[in-house]
């Protein structure tokens, strides 16, 4: 509750700070301070200090799972702002608004991570989506950015419509928006209305999480949006959607797991296959990362398929591992002038520290041991294995992980083993240090995942 209200207030404050504060640095520092404050408030709530006690009539529940994920999202955003805030200002003149929109998205994330009512879920998803449409099109003079924004808006609002339709159908079948009431339905045979509603919800959530075959918007939007916002979209927002996804299916439709499990398995296979295979053929690192985000979504789908304690723990770890690594790579990518693989040629010679940290992030995404990426994939596989059936799914997933080596390592090969002289890039020492911290966190979580997961049981 702390974070929800605070993020909304801070959003408004920062929006007006653009008028009151004249220097860019002041707005930036205000935003970074704001996110730190948000994180602090959320951690205080985890420890039991709640500032605002508002009766939500059971529409929201701030449990360990949601609070921990909120903290993860805030830490990721803090690191993201520390690394890339200066680059956000370069996108356009309305820099204060970009920060404000980020805060509104965080407000939406707190809603989607803690909803107990389908209406709150809908609100949360909308509050996340609308600022994203704006951020995607924020590079006003760039046609690609405009195209991406329009595409995203049209398809996104269509899927939101589907979601609303699904919610309405479920209300018709059950007579309640409350997830636990829906989940308590143990009738012998679910009505067609309920099944149709569930499928519509599944489709719309799959769209938001860019799960195949609802992924077609992803590469274009991620590629067209200003890189600094792609980073935010592909990491924190995607993680939040998955948290909402697993929460929805766990609480509302857990009892019908048998009926949708195979369906989810097929979506998982399709996502893994399309994401990985298409990423292999990309020439631009940015577009490769867009497909890689689809591939990673495929792995996260395994948690949805398994839906047990391991899966929930694992998904939390996965969101951290994936967000940290991807934010780090994007932060470096933003500084590059040439987004192709060749643009990275000889990068290790020019920027040894940046190359080393980027390598760690790439290894983590590829799932090499000693990085958080390995353990998070490991948890997913373990959860899927614990269901005791469909072993082929696990084997398929690891084979696809092997395919992912191909495109992640292409960047490493370019940086270390190929000669090239790209234009020098400028980074501040602070930027380097934050990247080192991020890389250290990735490795630390890869050795001691309980540093994070013990919070789940605090």
């Amino acid at each position: 509750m702390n974070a929800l209200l605070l993020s909304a207030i801070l959003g408004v404050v920062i929006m007006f700070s653009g008028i009151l504060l004249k220097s860019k640095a002041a707005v930036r520092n205000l935003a970074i301070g704001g996110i730190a404050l948000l994180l602090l408030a959320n951690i205080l709530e985890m420890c039991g200090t709640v500032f605002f006690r508002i009766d939500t009539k059971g529409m929201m529940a701030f449990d360990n799972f949601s609070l921990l994920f909120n903290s993860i999202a805030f830490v990721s955003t803090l690191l993201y702002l520390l690394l890339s805030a200066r680059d956000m200002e370069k996108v356009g003149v309305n820099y204060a608004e970009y920060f404000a929109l980020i805060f509104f998205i965080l407000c939406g994330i707190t809603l989607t991570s803690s909803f107990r009512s389908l209406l709150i879920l809908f609100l949360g998803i909308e509050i996340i989506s609308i600022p994203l449409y704006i951020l995607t099109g924020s590079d006003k003079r760039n046609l690609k950015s405009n195209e991406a924004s329009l595409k995203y808006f049209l398809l996104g609002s269509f899927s939101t419509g589907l979601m609303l339709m699904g919610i309405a159908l479920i209300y018709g079948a059950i007579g309640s928006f409350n997830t636990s009431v829906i989940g308590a339905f143990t009738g012998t045979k679910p009505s067609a209305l309920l099944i149709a509603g569930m499928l519509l919800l599944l489709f719309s959530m799959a769209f938001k999480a860019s799960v195949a075959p609802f992924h077609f918007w992803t590469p274009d939007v991620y590629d067209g949006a200003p890189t600094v916002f792609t980073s935010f979209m592909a990491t924190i927002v995607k993680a939040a959607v998955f948290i909402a996804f697993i929460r929805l299916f766990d609480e509302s439709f857990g009892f019908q797991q048998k009926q949708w499990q195979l369906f989810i398995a097929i979506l998982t296979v399709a996502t893994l296959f399309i994401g990985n295979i298409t990423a292999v053929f990309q020439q631009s690192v940015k577009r490769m990362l867009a497909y890689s985000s689809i591939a990673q979504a495929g792995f996260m789908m395994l948690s949805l398929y398994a839906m047990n304690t391991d899966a929930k723990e694992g998904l939390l770890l996965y969101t951290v591992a994936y967000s940290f690594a991807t934010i780090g790579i994007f932060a470096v990518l933003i500084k590059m002038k040439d987004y192709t693989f060749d643009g990275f040629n000889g990068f290790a010679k020019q920027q040894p520290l940046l190359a080393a940290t980027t390598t760690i992030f790439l290894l983590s995404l590829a799932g090499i041991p000693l990085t958080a990426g390995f353990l998070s994939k490991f948890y997913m596989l373990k959860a899927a294995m614990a269901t005791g059936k469909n072993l082929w799914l696990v084997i398929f997933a690891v084979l696809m992980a092997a395919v992912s080596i191909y495109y992640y390592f292409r960047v490493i090969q370019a940086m270390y083993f190929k000669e090239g002289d790209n234009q020098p890039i400028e980074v501040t020492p602070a930027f380097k240090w934050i990247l080192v911290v991020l890389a250290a966190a990735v490795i630390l979580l890869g050795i001691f995942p309980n540093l994070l997961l013990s919070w789940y049981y605090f």
Partner: protein
Amino acid sequence: MVPVLLILIPLMAGLATFFFKNEKAVRSWALFSAIITLVISVLGLTLLKEEKYLQHSCEWIQTIGSRFSVKLDGMGQLLCLLNAVAYPLVILATWNSPYKKSNNFFALMLLAQAGIMGVFLATDALLFYFFWELALIPMYFLCSQWGGERRIAVTFKFFIYTFIGSLLMLVGLLYIYSKTADHSFSIESFYSVVLSNKEQSFVFWLIFVAFAIKMPIFPLHTWQPDTYEQAPTATTMILSGVMVKMGVFGLLRWLFPVLPFASFQWGDFITSAALIGVIYASLIAIQQNDLKRLVAYSSIAHIGLMCAAAFSQNESGLQGLILQMFNHGINIIGLWIVVELIERQFGTRKISELGGLAQKAPALAILLVIVALANIALPLTNAFPGEFLMFNGIFSSLTKYYLWFTLMAGMGIILGAVYTLNMIRRVFYGNTNELTVATQDIKWNEKLALGIIVIIIFWLGVYPQCMLNEITGVTEPLLKKFEILRYTAVPK
């Protein structure tokens, strides 16, 4: 205590090496670290033989039942020693080989040593998997950065090959884990898992593929000659001398005891593949003109024989195997050192361009001949007792094809003698040509490295008992697993 130090010293020394500037200092530091590791490894074999020194276990990821537990026991002991012996030899022998950014080179080499040590020491399946991969990552960078012309593509093939194998192994390990009674990755829990025959077969292949790729076994060997050829020779020494033993070791520690039935059932099939590989690799080795590729194929042949001995699954075969793993490591490093010396001096590895080296470099010639004779397991050299026991094992194994297997293995030995002696004749004897007329003999450090190898060769050739003492009883628990099978299960 000892096992932790064996992992920690190379790890820490390796990380520190990244920050060194002076090339001489880098090499001295790496040699120093390698010698300390060797001393500790020898201490573990001699003075500190009590249980409390030889194992360590502490909490790691409690929630999923994985512990950081390492143990220096019979099976891993000799391989740890091999790993510890190999490094000082390699560093000494390549003392004069130039490496760009030598600090990174030696740092990665030491990190690989830590990873390999971990593989031989881990008694927790997840930890084992961790180290298995960790040994691979430094190798990837070493081969891609410092290798020959085609290094990037070749190393990538090697990496993807082994990575697919390890991922399938991970699925196999996870499957066994999901069947353990106490949901634990510890080796004891794995050993007490009971799987149905059908499950065993399935999981066996998931895990075996990883080991088969690593060893490598025909027809999964295609990455190996290219990688050995393109990698910098110091790295090749470690790859072929120490790292391939990880695969054989994996069989003995993680596959046979956990899945005895499937190991028994598929034994004939795999032995056939391995022995076809022996003959195939030997025939190719005879045709080779490139020294590095010749030694690479010879390595495939030797490993194939080891794999066949492993699947003989009796005491003689397994003891011979453990002995031979150590000896083969020493011998092949000796061969690589000679190859490296020749390549550095003449800038070529083509056998047809060389000749008459013995006239100009007698010391090198004598040392090489001894190493080469050990490579073909002449009596009085270290490889003889090992190969003899392995042959005995294959001959007395339970399979009905034992005679064929022994014959094929024997063929491999004969062909091995053909290509080794042929290589010596063409490179070292005959007349000198313009290239080799100015040959210089080897320097003190190279003499020292090869000299140590020759001493080990003769010592273990004449008195193998000191090694056999270490490994008596090691194979017993393993054989017990098979013993039960013989009386209970009908292999069909």
